[in-house]
């Protein structure tokens, strides 16, 4: 049934608008103000125009953090999405196993992010952690605190551990929404299990997969806490991603102007990605109806 057109519905939206505007618009305007000035202290500030933007856009450290961020986000997507689909297909569809699986899967998602960092910090240590110890027993020279590649692998494995269950849960609920008649028809036609996946399950998963990719891509773009606890962005800058870079500049060094300019650039990219994904999701949803 079609929704009715009624502009009085705005009255119901106003509380949300006010509270989110307080937390989003006022701070965002402030960041824009900071980004065009050199601020030394209260009352001591000078308008510098686009100077900080120029400096930030040409900062090789930022380029490094940006490339690492893209590489990280694409890596975890390439691992988590196929793995998530595979696990969702393997999950039981009836019986006690369903509830048990769902609960176990949800567990990592509910752990505070710094505790996720702590868990892996302990788990990957060669002296007291099972993971680090196993690798050492196997003769692998592994130390996430010293070797950049080891640190990278650890951060990726941690993220895969932490967030693949989200992709699994979404795909699983997508799979459950497929009517049994589809499978019966496929059985009558003698379709192979690959054909069932390719022509029945995958098309039905498009919607949830878009959401999974959206959430994983965007959230990995904001990742801060887990690497902060695990590696502190190091060794060197090996695991310094965008949020880490920004938080260090803003709170660590208190460089208001450059941090603000960087914030605006960061935010614009997030806005662009959000919009692309949102448009895609809306097209899929209206297309299916």
């Amino acid at each position, binding site marked *: 049934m079609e929704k009715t057109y009624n502009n009085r519905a705005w009255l119901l939206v106003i509380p949300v608008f006010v509270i989110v505007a307080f937390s989003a618009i*006022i701070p965002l*305007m*402030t960041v*824009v*103000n*900071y980004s*065009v*000035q050199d*601020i030394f202290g*209260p*009352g001591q*500030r000078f*308008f510098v*125009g*686009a100077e900080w*933007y*120029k400096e930030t*856009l*040409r900062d090789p450290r930022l380029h490094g953090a940006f490339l690492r961020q893209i590489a990280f986000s694409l890596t975890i997507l390439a691992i988590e999405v196929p793995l998530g689909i595979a696990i969702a297909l393997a999950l039981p569809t009836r019986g006690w196993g369903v509830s048990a699986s769902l609960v176990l899967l949800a567990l990592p998602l509910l752990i505070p992010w710094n505790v996720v960092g702590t868990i892996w910090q302990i788990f990957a240590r060669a002296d007291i952690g099972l993971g680090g110890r196993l690798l050492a027993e196997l003769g692998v020279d592994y130390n996430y605190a010293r070797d950049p590649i080891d640190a990278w692998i650890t951060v990726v494995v941690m993220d895969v551990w932490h967030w693949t269950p989200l992709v699994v849960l979404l795909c699983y609920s997508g799979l459950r929404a497929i009517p049994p008649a589809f499978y019966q028809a496929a059985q009558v036609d003698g379709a192979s299990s690959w054909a069932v996946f390719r022509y029945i399950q995958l098309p039905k998963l498009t919607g949830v997969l878009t959401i999974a990719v959206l959430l994983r891509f965007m959230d990995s773009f904001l990742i801060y806490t887990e690497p902060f606890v695990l590696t502190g962005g190091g060794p060197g800058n090996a695991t310094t991603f965008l949020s880490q870079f920004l938080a260090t500049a803003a709170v660590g060094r208190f460089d208001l102007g450059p941090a603000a300019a960087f914030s605006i*650039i960061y935010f*614009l990219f997030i*806005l*662009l990605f959000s*919009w692309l994904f949102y*448009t895609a999701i809306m*097209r899929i949803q209206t297309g299916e109806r």
Partner: protein
Amino acid sequence: MHPLEWMAWTWPTALFFLGIAAALIGMLAWELASPTVQRRGFLPISTTRGDRFFIGLLGSAFIHLAWIGVTDQSVWFALAVSLLWMATVMRFG
């Protein structure tokens, strides 16, 4: 100290936000006067007037970033390019 000192307002940024606010109010008035129709232009999706306005603004922001990042010319040129882009999207998007 002025209570709004922490926000560190400057005239250029204040004018910028007033401009955005005025544009939004203008869009609202336009919508009330003659409601928009979804249509398909050179953009790969069908858009309403508000969608095109948003695409225009976001595009303008990135035009500015690219300009500042690549050239040393005045930002006013970027503004001119943006206005051209904005007009194109609103009319033909």
